[in-house]
């Protein structure tokens, strides 16, 4: 067991899911790692000058360039003859899924030897909860408010793991802070693979999503149990579901615990439920088919 490489005393909100993602990530990597982080919740709460929570080398430059910085760090390590240190670009959904996405695509296309890890709290949480590409359908945020003629966000969540596979990434996975063993195993496996590896971690946000800070893990687990967040792995192009309950729980159980979905009417919840059922089935078909996603796209 590694020492905890995130120190206590950071300034994240009570019940923050994202800091847990960072903690589990470092438990998997150990000390021989360099973290390149984008601007966001974790950056402002874990490195308040002159304090830091990071016991590993860590750099932040800007919001949208964590991946490009990581690419440069990796090149420098190569020049120094260092083949062992893992370089991880770590950012929120704003930094990776949206504003920094061009650099993500660039690294994936070149298959640069870095790991990209997204902590996904499904909004620009650091600036007061505005919708991002990762905000789910129907969620109410500052810039996708629900109202008399709006249900909140009108489109589905951007699927970055599948976009990563479409670039030919050798290892892609989704993970959740409610399943730390699975999360750490995936990071460890990714460490043994060369090229760009992409891991997307679901990290509930009590403030942004509107639930009690004691419920973070419960919410994260429910997301997986209802199929709202699906745990999978795509190794060498082959899709594999990592969590398959005999039956999915109704998504209503998950939605009703959060203020951001409070306004949803029954028929709107049904749209989400149908979408989950369809996705779940299609992914089963995909897995059975044995299709290699790296080569068909």
């Amino acid at each position: 067991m590694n020492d905890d490489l995130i120190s206590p005393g950071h300034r994240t909100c009570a019940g923050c899911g994202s800091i847990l993602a960072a903690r589990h990530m470092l438990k998997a990597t150990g000390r021989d790692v360099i973290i390149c982080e984008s601007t966001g919740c974790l950056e402002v709460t874990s490195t308040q000058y002159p304090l830091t929570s990071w016991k590993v080398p860590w750099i932040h430059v800007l919001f949208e360039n964590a991946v490009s910085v990581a690419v440069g760090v990796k090149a420098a390590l190569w020049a120094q003859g260092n083949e062992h240190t893992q370089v991880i670009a770590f950012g929120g959904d704003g930094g990776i899924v949206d504003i920094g996405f061009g650099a993500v695509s660039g690294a994936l296309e070149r298959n640069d030897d870095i790991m990209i890890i997204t902590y996904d709290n499904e909004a620009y949480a650091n600036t007061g909860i505005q919708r991002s590409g990762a905000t789910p359908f129907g969620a109410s945020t500052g810039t996708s408010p629900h109202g008399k003629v709006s249900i909140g966000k009108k489109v589905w969540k951007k699927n970055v793991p599948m976009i990563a596979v479409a670039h030919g990434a050798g290892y892609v996975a989704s993970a959740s802070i409610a399943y730390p063993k699975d999360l750490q195993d995936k990071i460890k496996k990714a460490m043994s693979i060369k090229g760009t590896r992409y891991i997307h971690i679901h990290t509930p946000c009590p403030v942004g999503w509107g639930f009690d800070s004691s419920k973070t893990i419960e919410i994260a687990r429910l997301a997986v149990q209802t199929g709202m967040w699906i745990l999978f792995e795509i190794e060498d192009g082959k899709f594999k579901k990592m969590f398959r309950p005999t039956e999915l729980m109704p998504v209503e159980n998950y939605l009703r615990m959060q203020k951001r979905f409070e306004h949803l009417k029954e028929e709107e919840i049904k749209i989400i439920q149908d979408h989950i059922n369809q996705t779940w089935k299609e992914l089963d078909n995909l897995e059975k088919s044995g299709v290699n996603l790296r080569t068909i796209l």
Partner: protein
Amino acid sequence: MIADGRIKSRFLEVESEFSAISSVAGAVAAGSRAFTATCSQGLALMHEVLFAIAGMRLPVVMVVTNRALSSPINIWNDCQDSISERDSGWIQLYVETVQEAVDTIIQAYKIAEDNRVLLPVMVCMDGFILTHTVEPVELPDDVEVKKFLPKYKPNHAFLDPTRPMTLGPFTYPEPYFKLRKELSLAIDNSKIIISEVNEEFGEMFKRKYGNGLIEEYKNDKKIAIVSMGSVCGTIKCVVDSRKDTGLVRIRCYRPLPKEDLIEALKGKEIVIVLDKNISLGLGSGSVFSEVRDVLYSLKDRPKVVGCVAGLGGTDIKSKDINRLIDESKKMKDGEVVWLI
């Protein structure tokens, strides 16, 4: 050169200028030397990263091959791109010839990496005029360059798993203010090192450029033209043919060598500042307004007039310079003309 294995280096084929400069920042933060070049829109795209690199005190070196900014779109030379980044915290050196560009890139690493400096350096050379012309250049010998600029060994903050450090943290108002003040002092203090490196280079390679900060050419006349970059070559020809005018070339625009400019321009009747940029809304180029500001404290300050020239690659000919000098005698202090 890398494809042929002539230098052991990694070439990053990034997807944008924004990523190029970000990757350079990462590489330098991890303790290696890196290089990139850009101009115009590419430099504008890098804007946000430039400020971060200076604030993080990363000794990055970049060449800017000066070109005009849109709109309208235009690919030719002026200095609007790098002048627009003057407040970013980068040292800016403007060269006159291709030879000076080669020599200045080597000097730039020595300046940037000096522990008394630790700042990024932008080597600015005129696009097309210097980048797309044939000019004999003496390439310094590799062995000599390695003597002048030994292998890079960072001993300041950098990313190393055996010595974990947090770079680029979040700061509250007071520490932010303090760090910005330190940055301002650091770039001001770099003037000494820029001059030292120019001298040291001169001793080793038998070429140097003024005192590293400014170059005076036949500057013992009543009139002085102040400018930067390749147009200074044309101005030197004009100066050779006249008895009334000399040249003061600003080589180092950031930090601005105020004391050197005062020394070089005091006692002049007329100072003509020729700018290849326009500060929109100010009605003049930036060099003009800054030179005029520098001379303001002089008791008997010269008449300072400005000229905006060469935008978007418009040619600046000897006869234009001659006409400008003649007209300057009739111009009012502070007046600006457009050479068009």
